[in-house]
């Protein structure tokens, strides 16, 4: 599976149709990019359709590296000079929790798997390089994404009393959480489907989902 995807990625990239990415604008926490696809590319500031999923304001090539998810595994594919622990990455590298990598000469990222109950991962920015708009992190979402106060959430929201769960169903993003949850102003104690522009709120939580073009 990994080899097939890798071949597809490294060979005919035009065949690959990227999945949706979202930005979560979270009050008093920050902004996080939520990538739903199995393949997420990181590159330099190129506009248009050839831009990477995560275009950083950094001296990187158009698609510098790609994060590839295969089941529970994550693999880093380096298309341009990149290092992990000071050693150059030749084609691919199996990522584990806490792996730090350097893209080009100065972009430093850390790969995290914060939750044992979820296969989703988080990319943290260690250097000052960010996308054009301030983003605090990237979540490579597998099936679920946890937002909450403790460190084992993918997005840590220190002031929240309890965690909320984002999950996929039928190719769509859904939320499940607590009794006093509101979706776009409507009471939704059982949660509901999210789309671009959805506003999730409760007595002490508020964030908006925005689809990235």
């Amino acid at each position: 599976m990994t080899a097939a995807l890798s071949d597809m990625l490294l060979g005919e990239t035009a065949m690959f149709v990227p999945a949706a990415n979202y930005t979560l604008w979270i009050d008093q926490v920050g902004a996080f990019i939520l990538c739903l696809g199995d393949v997420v590319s990181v590159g330099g500031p190129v506009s248009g359709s050839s831009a990477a999923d995560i275009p950083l304001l950094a001296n990187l090539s158009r698609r510098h590296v790609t994060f590839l998810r295969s089941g529970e595994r994550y693999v880093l594919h380096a298309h341009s000079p990149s290092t992990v622990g000071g050693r150059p990455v030749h084609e691919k590298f199996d990522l584990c929790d806490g792996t730090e990598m350097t893209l080009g000469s100065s972009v430093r990222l850390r790969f995290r798997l914060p939750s044992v109950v979820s296969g989703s991962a988080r990319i943290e920015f260690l250097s000052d390089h960010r996308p054009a708009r301030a983003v605090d992190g990237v979540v490579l979402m597998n099936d679920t994404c946890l937002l909450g106060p403790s460190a084992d959430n993918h997005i840590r929201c220190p002031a929240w009393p309890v965690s909320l769960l984002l999950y996929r169903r039928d190719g769509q993003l859904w939320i499940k959480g607590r009794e006093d949850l509101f979706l776009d102003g409507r009471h939704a104690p059982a949660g509901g489907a999210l789309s671009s522009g959805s506003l999730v709120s409760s007595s002490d939580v508020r964030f908006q989902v925005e689809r990235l073009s």
Partner: protein
Amino acid sequence: MKFAFAPEAIPLPGYTIKRAIDRGGFGEVYYGLADSGKEVALKLLQRNQQVELRGVRQCLNLKHPNLVSIFDIRTDAEGDEWVIMEFISGPSLDQVLRSHPQGLPLSEVEQWLAGLAAGVAFLHDRGIVHRDLKPGNVFREHGVVKVGDVGLSKFMTPSRRSAQTESVGTVYYMAPEVSRGKYGRELDVYSLGVMLFEMIVGEVPFNGESIGEILMKHLTELPDLSRLPHAVRPVVARALEKDPTRRTADALQLAREFRAALRGSPVATEIPATHFVDVERLERAQGGASRSTPVRLPDPARSGGSSRPVAEPQSSAPGLWRQFGADLKSNPVLMVAIVVTAIFLVPVLTFSTGRESGVRVSMPGFLVWFAVGYAAYRISKKHQSRSQSRQSRHPRPPQPPRRLNRSRVSSETHPALPATQSLFSPAPSVLHAFDLPGDRPAATESTPRRDAPRQSALRASSWRVRCGELTGAMAGAVFWSLTLSALIGLVQGYVSDIPLASRIFVDWSHAALFTLTTIAGAWAVLVPAKLFEPWKGRGNLFITAPLGGLVGVVAWYLREMLLVELPAESLFSGIFTRIGRWPLVSAETGSTLAGFAVFFAVLFGLRRWWLQAAALRNHRLSVWGVAGTALFAWLLPVAFRFNQP
């Protein structure tokens, strides 16, 4: 948590809100995007608009790499004022300190201070005082420190230097002269000194359980410099000088002195004598602890002879008293002698018995007893905490907490103190602040940050330190138990219409039984609380109930030894009059050994006494808790027969 504007709102033409950043003292701050895509911070002014706008307008055209830029001031359709500012994506110093509860590395402190000082010095050079410097207003982005929230800035014209009637800012960083309405640039230097102390130690120098307590410490108490590295103590001491004329001259000088101290440069500062009396004397008392080489700053113009050499003798009466206090703190033998005198001698001299009133205490005798005993108790506590601080200086340790909550308190967050009201002046407002309901900083948002490191500090505290604290607490329990007995004796002396048989202290044996049982009970609470301190001081009834039973046994033996006659009848007949084959009362002696043991075991087991002595308890003394316990003890014989005195 509720913010006035939702994401995608456009309160001002050309600016779209994406999310809320925070809520500050003067209003809400949002992250927004201009139509062009430019990131901005949008600050909605909701309170003290005039104060804020006045300051912001002064700074509108200031440009400096260490200041957060202000782009514009706009008014929305509702008439609300907005300040459009540069958005800083990096963390605030407050966030950084939260992740470093034991303080930052000195090299990092130097970087923060250098950027801070450059920004503040630029403001001062333009005649502006920031007035609200605090970690929440300082940020770092791409390695550049930026001072934000200059909305409280004021011009330093002579007419405005005094006669200010408003006092705003955050109490932890507020200079003492604000109490006199003085707003010179020295107050920014003081705030920098507080932040410097906090960056190194991880805690502010003046902390307390209420706003009033913190303010009073700024006005009267000296910072505990023993927690700082030796080389930087003089630098911080001068920055925290109470008298603004003796304080470090300006922000850049503070940064220079700090850098020089770190590098061991001979350039340092003349040390204000008052700051170093305690530390130096304590170190001499330690017997050869390393002493700092006196370092002098070539700055006679600023100091103007106002600073005294460290060893200059003080001949005034207050000086002699201070000298006596310092000697007392550094001389445990002398202190123990006074404590022993206070505890054993004074009550003997002040107690007496009367044929009608039982044991009684005269008012002068009680006052003398309390003054001497309390002074000895306080000195003992202070000596103990300083000794612990000294023990843990090398290497830099987690600091065992003396105060429970170190959360931030600002005048804006205090519901009973509007920002337009002076927190310092007039002085009575400070004193009233002690009495304000709900003025504990624990109610503010940052409590978790404060308690988590404290809990870990408690766990890291050595057993030697813990034993020392326990000894002090047990001595304190003796003092307070004797005081309680003296108070009862005092009341007995004044109340004449109660028959002798109904009095609590009929004679000396009753007083001794009550006092010794109280001491035993207090010790039975304190010992397990200290033993379980690493686990939040939580005991449980399986520990406290047997200890209570033990206290009951001690009380029964004391009664036997002292030949105390307790009443043969009880107000309540009791549901249970025996446990198994052991009766709780007997017709001859009243309550039996089993009766005493059961009464105290139930009292200790069900009242969750460990909460009253837990290290992280919210209140030092819960009056309602004590009253509830008294009621519980009075009602307990309803279940288990016990003939109470």
